[in-house]
Every structure is written in structure tokens, then in C-alpha cells.
């Protein structure tokens, strides 16, 4: 049984049919990536899993629990954390307060240990713990967004374009962190436009095109595929 099973979901924005009959799964311990061009429906898919949007039809199961109609704030307590596109850290709150918000569903006593773990992974955040998040650099904000999501000890971590808008060196660093998390056993669903980098860290990948899954395979298979090379890897 997969950790996350998405079955034939359809998602609409009013009359716009954004996600069409999409099915995929993520097994425990895997890194799975969803790649696709602008507007393919990657973010919409993640938002539907996290409960910010609701599918009109189809089924989403997480650890045998049906997530249908569950509000976003309860999805978190079932063990799914999403790092949204554009990071969306709380710019007017301190680094520490942002991390506390990440642990909102957790018992108070566990917050200090979780924060220590995050600081160990992201030493930069510890140096800036009392700084207002709005004053952090883009890379630091991305680390904060990831650290914030890790505060809830998620069974599934969903990352929406973590490398967006970052300098190449930082992009590298973000993917290194994804690898480390993978090694530590975290299950990750990674959405990226940076297909090459995403496929090289992923166990498996799915390709979304205008709301449909058109191809899937292991990271290596997709990296080697001619069609993918042409469309997403610049030839």
C-alpha cells in the first residue's frame, strides 16, 4: 500500500478544468517528482492534496485515510506538510516564530527539540533566529520555509518549486538538502520546473501537461528519454 495514493482526481477553478483525471502514488521513503511547464497544474495538484483546494471527483488516500473534503489545517495533523510555491514564510514574524508556526499542531514540549533539529540542518537559521523573516535573503527564506515544514515531523513533505528564483549555487544547496532528507528516510513529493535537477534526485517522476499526466518512470528513465530531453531538458 502506497503512503499517498491519488486516484483519478479532477480539479476545477470555476469553469477551468485544471487537473484532469490525474492518478499517481508515492511510496514510503521515496522521492517522487512532478515536472511540467508553467501552468501544467503542478501547484494545483499539491494544493489539492494539502486541502487548500478540493477535487470535484476522484480520491486521495494517505495511510489508508480518505482525505476527501478535509480542511487544510487538519491535513497537516495527519502528517503532510507543504512548502508552498514562493516560500510564503511569514515575513513580519521572526525566524523562531515562523518555526513555531510550523509546529502549530505539535505538543508544546516537543517544539524545542524539533527546532534544534532544524537548526542543525540549517545553521544559518540559528544565527538569524530572532531576525524578522522579511529581512532574510531568498535562499535563507527557502531554508526557513523548509525548516518550518519539517517542524511538524511530516510523514510526507511536499515541496513546490524550492529552487525558484535562486542563484545556481543555492539551487545546488537546496537539492543537496533534498538528498539528505531522502537519505534520512523522509518521503518527498517534489514539484519542479528544473526538470534535470529534480529527476536526478528522484526515485520516480511524473510529467504533467495541461492538467494530465502524460509520462511516468524512474528518474533515470525519464532523464534518458528523448521526448523528455526535447521538451524539458533543453534538447
Amino acid at each position, binding site marked *: 500500500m502506497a503512503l499517498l495514493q491519488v486516484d483519478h482526481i479532477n480539479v476545477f477553478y470555476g469553469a477551468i478544468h485544471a487537473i484532469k483525471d490525474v492518478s499517481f502514488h508515492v511510496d514510503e521513503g521515496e522521492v517522487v517528482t512532478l515536472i511540467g511547464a508553467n501552468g501544467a497544474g503542478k501547484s494545483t495538484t499539491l494544493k489539492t492534496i*494539502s*486541502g*487548500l483546494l478540493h477535487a470535484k471527483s476522484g480520491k486521495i488516500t494517505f495511510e489508508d485515510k480518505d482525505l476527501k473534503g478535509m*480542511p*487544510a*489545517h*487538519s491535513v*497537516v*495533523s495527519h502528517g503532510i*506538510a*507543504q512548502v*508552498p*510555491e*514562493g*516560500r*510564503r*514564510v*511569514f*515575513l*513580519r*514574524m521572526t525566524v523562531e*516564530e515562523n518555526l*513555531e*508556526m*510550523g509546529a*502549530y*499542531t505539535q505538543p508544546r514540549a516537543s517544539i524545542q527539540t524539533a527546532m534544534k533539529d532544524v537548526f542543525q540542518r540549517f545553521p544559518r537559521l540559528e544565527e538569524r533566529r530572532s531576525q524578522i523573516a*522579511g529581512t532574510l535573503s531568498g535562499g535563507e527564506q527557502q531554508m526557513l520555509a523548509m525548516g*518550518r515544514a519539517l517542524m*511538524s515531523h511530516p510523514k510526507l513533505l511536499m515541496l513546490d518549486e524550492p529552487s525558484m528564483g535562486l542563484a545556481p549555487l543555492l539551487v545546488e544547496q537546496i537539492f543537496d538538502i533534498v538528498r539528505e532528507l531522502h537519505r534520512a528516510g523522509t518521503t518527498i513529493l517534489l514539484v519542479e520546473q528544473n526538470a534535470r535537477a529534480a529527476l536526478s534526485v528522484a526515485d520516480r517522476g511524473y510529467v504533467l501537461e495541461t492538467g494530465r499526466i502524460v509520462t511516468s518512470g524512474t528518474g533515470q528513465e525519464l532523464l534518458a528519454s528523448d521526448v523528455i530531453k526535447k521538451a524539458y531538458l533543453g534538447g
Partner: protein
Amino acid sequence: MDWLSLAFSQIVNGLQAGSVYALVALGYSMVYGIILLLNFAHGDIIMVGAYTAFYAMTAFHLHPVVSVVLAVLVSTALGVFVEKVAYTPLRSAPRLSLLITAIGISFLLENGAQLLFGADTKSMDPMVRGGIRLGTTTVSFAAIITIIVSVIAMAALSLLVRRTKLGKAMRAVSEDMGAAQLMGISLNKTISFTFAVGSALAGIGSVLYLCAYPQASPTMGSMLGLKAFVAAVLGGIGSIPGAMLGGFAIGLLEAIVSAVGLSEWKDGVVFAVLIVVLLVKPTGILGKKITEKV
């Protein structure tokens, strides 16, 4: 009376009125900060609070402290009830629908009060008498109580917002509703809590208003509410310290205008100052520019 004591007593008057404006302005600002609604029914919550305290003391002869608690409880419950019944169903509706609903609720409360209590102004004996003599002036106990109570309430609010889990959740929701939900924060609970706190402050404000003017009328909330709204905008709507600053600024401004013998002009001056401040700084004194979301 010499110059100095005149100035002193006007400052006390200004602080007393300003305390009430500030408490009420906080409710406007907090609600705006969290759901971007100019809650025009907020002033009428004060009116209901004032009637509650009024009847508790005059008809039921309850102890003033019990009456005050009752007024705060009724205001809080009413604020939360209005939010649940009238605003929650419009969470994803256009802002304008929400605004018009708030104006509708305001009329409903005013007319409802008129129906229940009559259109006339109800007066009672002063709640607090006497004062302290300081040189040639007297500072009334009412003014002292008002200033102390509101300062305590504002300090408590600052602690709540800065230190408690719910307070931080309020800040998170007001900054980014979507991201806040992804943290596991319930919008319904947090927004209800915000209305509860804002309305409780309005309830306290209503009683402090009764200390200054021992009377209640169905429309008493509209002018007070409007002034407090101006205070919130002046200070920077959405900002908690801004609402406090705006409230005291307007109270003092009115006192100064009255002191120089132009008391019938004081409302005009308040609005003129608002216009000038907004021309110079459209976000208000402490207001922050709304950050564009990526």
C-alpha cells in the same frame, strides 16, 4: 485657573477620550488586519455593551463590577455571533459584499435597539464620582480609572498577540491565510478569536464611555465608532500600536481644539487632520505597505 493647569486638565481629558477611542480602534484594526473588512457594525457593539451595563445597574441594581463584566461578556458574544452568522458565509465572496453586510448589521443593531429600548437617550447617575485635587485642578476618578484600565487592556493585548500561541496564529493568518492553514491553523477558530478580542475591548470601551457620559442611546455607537475608525486609519489600519497611537492622538487633538475655544469645530479638525496625514502617508502613521504576495 492658570495656563498650566488648564493645559494639564485638557491633556487628562484628551487621554480619557483617547483611551476609549484607542480601545475601539483596536477592534477595527484587528478585524481589518485579519479579513480586510471595515467592520462598520463594530461601533454598535459598543452601544449594546453600554445598554447592557446601563440596565444591569439601573433596572437590576447589580454591582457596577458585575455589570461591567456582563457588558464585556455580552459584547464579546455578540461580536462572535455576528461574525459567525453574517461574515463567515461570505469568506470567499467579494470584499464589497462583506462591507455592505457589515453596514446592514450596523443598521439592524441600531434599529433593533430603538425597538427594544426606545429612541430616546437614557440617562443614569454617574458611575464614578469625585476626583483628586492637584493644585488648582481636579482630576476625576473617572478619568484615572479610564486611563489605567485601557492601558492595562492594551498591555494585555500586546502580550497576547506577541507571546501566546493564538496571538501568533492571528498574526500568521493576517499575513497569509493560505500559508497559515498549511501550518495547521484553523481559520474559523482564529478569526472568531479575533472578533472575540476586538469585541471584548469594545465592551470595556463602552463601560469607560459610560463613566464619562452616563447615558445610552441607540445611535451612540455611530459617532464613537466613526471617530475610532478614523483613529485606526490615522494610526495605520491593521496595526495594533497604530490603533493605540491613533486613538490617543485623536483624543488629544479634540482636547486641544476645545481648549482654544473651537469645540464645535473639533470633529471637522479631526477629519481634516486625517486627510492631511493620508495625503502625506497613505498607509497611516504606523501602517505598513501591504506586501505583494508572490
